[in-house]
């Protein structure tokens, strides 16, 4: 299973999904109307490292995080 977390202002509980890459995660989240806007402006980290390809392979135990727009300081 892969754990998916939604950080900062995204008001959504973590998911436990049986997926093997980020394409599958995209398909699942695109069906969630609450997530539509967040998908457009959020970055994605796997095991706390930002990733830049949807083909990124996921394995059992991986942790995916969605990071919406930031503003520290």
């Amino acid at each position, binding site marked *: 299973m892969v754990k998916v977390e939604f950080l900062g202002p995204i008001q959504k509980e973590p998911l436990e999904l049986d997926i093997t890459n980020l394409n599958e995660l995209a398909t699942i989240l695109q069906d969630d109307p609450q997530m539509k806007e967040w998908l457009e402006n959020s970055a994605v980290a796997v095991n706390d490292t930002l990733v830049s390809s949807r083909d990124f392979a996921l394995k059992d135990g991986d942790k995916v995080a969605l990071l919406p727009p930031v*503003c520290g*300081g």
Partner: protein
Amino acid sequence: MLYLYDGSLDVPTILKDWYESEANSNYGAYIPFVGTVRSEDEIDGLSFDIYEPILNKWFNDWQDKAKEKGAVIKMAHSRGDVMLHESSYIAAVFSPKRRVALEFIDEFVEDFKASAPIWKYDLKDGQRVYALDRSTAIKGSGLLS
């Protein structure tokens, strides 16, 4: 040397501690940047969420870059609520020579604003409202859209 605090920062004490901690390291330049909550849009203050695992990695990458130039970076940030005229952020560069420090503090603070996994909320009328319009999408955002 990344320090997270609950609530506002004690700026004089942090600036003093950092100065004294490097007093014998033979750095010629010490440049802190202090960020303070401004009164605008009738807010009562700001509030911050931090995702520490990625913040730590981001900070360590910068510390490595600084080290290559013989410099050191320190950073402090608030978690939770920080009220008007209180401070939520300090970044500081120490380096042997001034040019490195002046350039580093600018690059570091700008990348911090664009990349550090920290989310800001306005405190207004008892509500905590995400400051989307002042926030920046991290590079590579939209991957799943």
